[in-house]
């Protein structure tokens, strides 16, 4: 970009403001902190001009103009408080209120209602309407989750436009006309969208309310904490709304680079995690074959004593740790530090996709572009990933991209909700995502469709790769995967000719039988077709859980230290930690569960859930199984010691979402009595082991991460700000208040990946990215 647009200067209420041409008057006024009331307009949707609330007076215009539909023109003189404007606004509010019931005392919106607020600030003191209001039956359920009270509706069409234009799903529609206008649902098109909660939040009145939030509180009773949603790997920014230590809902906190102010229903209303009565409230110790309540002191001492016992009889390598994809970065860091520095083993892993460490320097496999970048892509290819259910807000951004003309290809085993909007769909047999992506790569190499500098500079490597794939051509692979080879070839051609293609695959697809080379193949596909390293082009996995990427970043890996350092480069870390670190790679997740260890420390994971019967038997045969959990999971039921932990709303920390954005999570409520945050438990265990950890808060852990992990160098909670920063980041200039800032990277280039990100590239001659140990 970089090109400076001529700004238009206009005068609003005697104050000048310069804005880019095409800006709406409402937006210009907002920059001056002048409130212009709006109902139908929503900054994320096209203007409609229906509610007639945002009147302003423009000099030279005989009638009042609507600020939400009028764009600025040079030297415009606007008044937002002239007698004409005031009368018009009062008139509109009076009109809106004649059929609006006086439900305020019992309405869930009361207290955060635009109609209340604007009536107070701009409305008439009373009404002259002394006749009969229109009445309807009180709330009707428009979906399983949303209720509609038609009396309260002011027909602003925000919800209808959200369903049609933003979510692009079946949903609410306008019905009838004139004063009988109402919002409703067509009989054959149920309102079952996962985005349905947004209409509740958008509704400027209490016409649409949430079933789960019905009558549970009033807004002024809420304690609202700015935090990050932990339900999936998108990391939408939220306000956690708590009353009397109960989370009632999460409310959107707009972050344009991630969620644009929208949330999915899971994030908005799924509060079971923290509110459930099934939560563990006391440590449990297995005595005589049964788990019995115990004190924290007892439990921590027992864990330490038994860990020491296993270490002394079987050696440190008989101890393993399975970390969590849900806990904060700080906790993940402490966990691997406990295992590595405290117990002396590299047997650290978590449940994750198969991302073999790359040759030489352990490059990360990440989404190299960002969510916001999706809108700039000309093509989006979804490989084996169901974004609608797994990363709904990414799905919503894809829908926005579709509206802008992006061609989306859904390559999945199962039909998905995006199929209807996609430019093309390709189906294949369950578990064959790897074969399909290799078929695409094979098509690119064989036709050949490679382009760009990257491929040209590595012509020899590309030729070698082509030869190595010669025996598995596209047709054979497609037949093996049960996919349509012609369609795959056509898709490969589209990718190779795209202005910018984003290729996304599901992290867990790499665990499928053919998934071993999936990550590598897709990365090569993107690199060789020059779809890499700029906004709207890139590739990467869509992670499974809220901190799946953070867990990797923090070194919950048997062969890599925090920040993807190879074990051999661990000297600095060892020095800082004040001890020698084991230099051989530890056992990975599967090896640990296959009976490789005698003692297993599980934090916030449930290996028993995915386990085979043999693995379950191994879990039960362990000398020691320590589990930190919120609930008595299948794994916890088999544990020797269960330590009750808390959910993300009850603790401080940072999460790293699927597109590398590190964001601050804040404690929104008191911990459940009897439970402790994972970082506190880890410190307790460490100190019971005599390690003498002195962390007072997650902030101190974050500071240590900032010192010792190159990838997160210089990180600070204040530097992350309200909206987070994408790694790799560097320190920016302090802002006006002296607050440190961090400058992130919206997208990664190959140079950054190879040399910059981990800070330990060796600058050798260019080669294709390749996993450890792979031949030829």
């Amino acid at each position: 970009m970089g090109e400076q647009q001529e700004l238009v200067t206009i005068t609003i209420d005697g104050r000048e403001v310069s804005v880019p041409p095409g800006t709406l008057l409402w937006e210009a006024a907002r920059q001056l902190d002048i409130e212009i009331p709006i109902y139908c307009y929503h900054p994320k949707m096209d203007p409609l001009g229906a509610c007639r609330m945002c009147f302003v007076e423009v000099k030279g215009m005989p009638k009042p103009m609507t600020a939400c539909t009028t764009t600025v023109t040079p030297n415009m003189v606007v008044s937002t408080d002239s007698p004409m404007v005031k009368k018009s606004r009062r008139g509109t509010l009076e009109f809106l209120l004649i059929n609006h019931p006086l439900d305020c005392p019992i309405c869930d919106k009361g207290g955060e209602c635009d109609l209340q607020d604007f009536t107070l600030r701009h409305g008439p003191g009373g009404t002259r309407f002394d006749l009969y209001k229109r009445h309807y039956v009180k709330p009707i359920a428009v979906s399983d989750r949303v209720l509609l009270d038609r009396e309260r509706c002011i027909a602003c069409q925000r919800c209808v436009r959200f369903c049609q234009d933003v979510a692009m799903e079946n949903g609410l529609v306008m019905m009838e006309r004139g004063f009988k206008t109402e919002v409703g649902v067509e009989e054959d098109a149920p309102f079952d969208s996962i985005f349905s909660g947004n209409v509740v939040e958008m509704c400027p009145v209490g016409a649409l309310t949430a079933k789960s939030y019905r009558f549970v509180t009033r807004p002024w009773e809420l304690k609202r904490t700015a935090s990050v949603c932990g339900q999936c790997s998108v990391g939408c920014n939220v306000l956690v709304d708590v009353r009397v230590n109960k989370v009632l809902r999460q409310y959107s906190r707009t972050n344009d680079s991630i969620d644009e102010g929208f949330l999915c229903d899971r994030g908005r209303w799924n509060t079971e995690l923290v509110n459930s009565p099934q939560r563990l409230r006391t440590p449990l110790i297995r005595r005589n074959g049964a788990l019995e309540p115990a004190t924290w002191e007892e439990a921590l001492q027992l864990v330490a004593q038994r860990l020491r016992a296993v270490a002394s009889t079987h050696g440190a390598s008989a101890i393993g740790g399975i970390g969590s994809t849900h806990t904060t970065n700080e906790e993940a860091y402490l966990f691997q530090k406990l295992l590595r520095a405290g117990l002396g083993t590299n047997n650290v892993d978590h449940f994750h996709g198969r991302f073999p460490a790359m040759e030489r320097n352990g490059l990360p496999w990440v989404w190299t572009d960002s969510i916001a970048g999706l809108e700039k892509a000309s093509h989006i290819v979804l490989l084996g990933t169901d974004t609608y259910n797994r990363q709904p807000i990414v799905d919503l951004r894809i829908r926005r991209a579709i509206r802008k003309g992006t061609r989306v290809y859904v390559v999945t085993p199962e039909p998905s909700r995006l199929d209807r909007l996609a430019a093309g769909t390709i189906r294949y047999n369950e578990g064959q995502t790897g074969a399909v992506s290799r078929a695409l790569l094979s098509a690119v190499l064989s036709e050949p469709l490679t382009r760009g500098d990257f491929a040209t500079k590595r012509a020899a490597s590309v030729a070698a790769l082509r030869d190595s794939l010669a025996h598995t051509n596209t047709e054979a692979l497609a037949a093996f995967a049960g996919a349509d080879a012609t369609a795959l070839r056509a898709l490969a051609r589209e990718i190779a000719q795209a202005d910018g293609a984003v290729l996304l695959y599901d992290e867990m697809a790499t665990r499928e039988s053919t998934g071993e080379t999936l990550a590598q193949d897709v990365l090569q596909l993107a690199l060789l077709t020059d779809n890499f390293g700029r906004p709207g082009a890139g590739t990467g996995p869509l992670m499974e859980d809220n901190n799946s990427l953070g867990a990797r970043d923090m070194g919950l890996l048997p062969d890599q230290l925090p920040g993807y350092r190879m074990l051999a480069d661990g000297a600095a870390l060892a020095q800082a930690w004040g001890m020698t670190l084991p230099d051989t790679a530890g056992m990975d997740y599967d090896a640990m569960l296959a009976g490789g260890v005698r003692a297993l420390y599980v934090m916030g994971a449930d290996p028993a859930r995915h386990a085979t019967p043999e693995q379950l038997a191994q879990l039960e045969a362990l000398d020691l199984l320590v589990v930190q959990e919120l609930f008595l999971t299948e794994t916890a039921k088999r544990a020797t010691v269960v330590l009750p932990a808390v959910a993300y709303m009850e603790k401080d920390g940072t999460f790293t979402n699927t597109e590398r954005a590190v964001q601050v999570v804040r404690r929104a409520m008191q911990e459940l009595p009897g439970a402790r945050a994972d970082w506190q438990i880890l410190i307790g265990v460490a100190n019971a082991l005599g390690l003498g950890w002195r962390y007072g808060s997650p902030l101190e852990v974050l500071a240590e991460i900032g010192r010792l992990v190159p990838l997160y160098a210089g990180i600070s909670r204040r530097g992350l700000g309200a909206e987070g920063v994408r790694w790799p980041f560097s320190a920016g200039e302090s802002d006006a208040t002296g607050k440190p800032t961090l400058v992130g990277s919206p997208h990664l280039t190959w140079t950054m990946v190879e040399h910059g990100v981990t800070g330990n590239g060796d600058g050798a001659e260019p080669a294709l990215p390749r996993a450890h140990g792979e031949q030829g």
Partner: protein
Amino acid sequence: MSETPGTTPANNSLPLGPTPRFLTRNFGVPGIDRIEVYRQHGGYESLAKALTQFEPDALVEEVKKSGLRGRGGAGFATGMKWGFLPKDNPKPRYLCVNADESEPGTFKDRVMIMEVCPHLLVEGTIISSFATKVHHAFIYVRGELPLAERQMARAVREAYDAGLLGKNILGSGFDLDITVHRGAGAYICGEESALLESLEGKRGYPRLKPPFPAVVGLYSSPTVINNVETIATVPAVVEHGADVYAAYGTEKSKGTRLYCLSGHVERPGNYELPLGVPLRTLIEDYGGGVRGGRQVKAVVPGGSSTPFLKPSQLDTPLDYESVAAAGSMLGSAGVIVLDDQTCIVGAVLRMTEFYRDESCGKCTPCREGTFWLVQLLERLEAGHGKESDIPLLADICDNIFGRSFCPLGDAATMSIVSSIKLFYNEYLHHVTAHGCLVGPRARGVAVGAGANV
């Protein structure tokens, strides 16, 4: 069928006599709705003339020169409207004929053109499409006009069979398709952008303007939208030439109009008369005077969306400028005469009910305001109103006028504001005497009804 009786002072200087029949020439001819009969009476000759003797741009110039103005209500110059089409837009162009004639008191397009002489409209549509280089035209017929729609559909079918539509019309190389679409019955779809929405299959909500339909119209393409009468006048302009057409009417309002005379007159009906004919001439000479020899109480000159005229304004010439000067609008030339036995409050209530029911519900002032107005007027009409209701009515109208999204809201306030101004005492009588000046609960006049010729 319509005659033009009565006596108008002869003016021999006019080429076609004092009352030319540009539109109604063939009315009364049996079977004129069939293509054979229509062609026997000179039908489609203008089309042949237009295709052979004119370039499209020359045609636009000709229409500009004729001074033809939109007959739908706003009176915008037709030739100029055609000229607004962007020259370099790669998208296809469309012509939409607005046959959604729903204005109370207006019945010219339905009766005189679509039901009686549909081929006139087909011919006009082809010529207009040729002039504007359109290859697909739509005729949007109001939902409540099934006969008109059937007639139009048959006429279009006949025209296709005769080679007047489709590819290479009359060997000129000009292609045109016409689609006749029947709406679902909504007054708002007479508003041009709501018509386009409806035609696209969406709810009939008016669109945000700008962009105007000439730039972004049907399916986001440049679109011309004209009233039926406007389009049906084009063949006459071509046939007689712009100068002949422009010789009629007044300085700024040229040509003839179909006046729809209804209400309390002896001979209601459609009358084609030159613009500028005095209201009194229309009512007394053509309409046969007020029913039962009573007195005129008020006249609505252009459909129910226009303010009332008083009896003292009966000499107003019916052209756009003169009516505007008299404080009203010529609109769609639906002249409704109310006699002295009419309860004005009742008549206004009846009109306002129409707007309440036909409001699309998109914008607040129109949706809620008309609802309120009707309730207030009902109360007043029934004799239970308060004196403060009358200024309240006026103030509600003030809050609607100029604040609504499209002109429907403005239209709803016209009769109320003007009637309060002209007949305040009648409103007051409803409050103070709890009844009507002209009789117990006289529930208005059947506006626009029973006026079939």
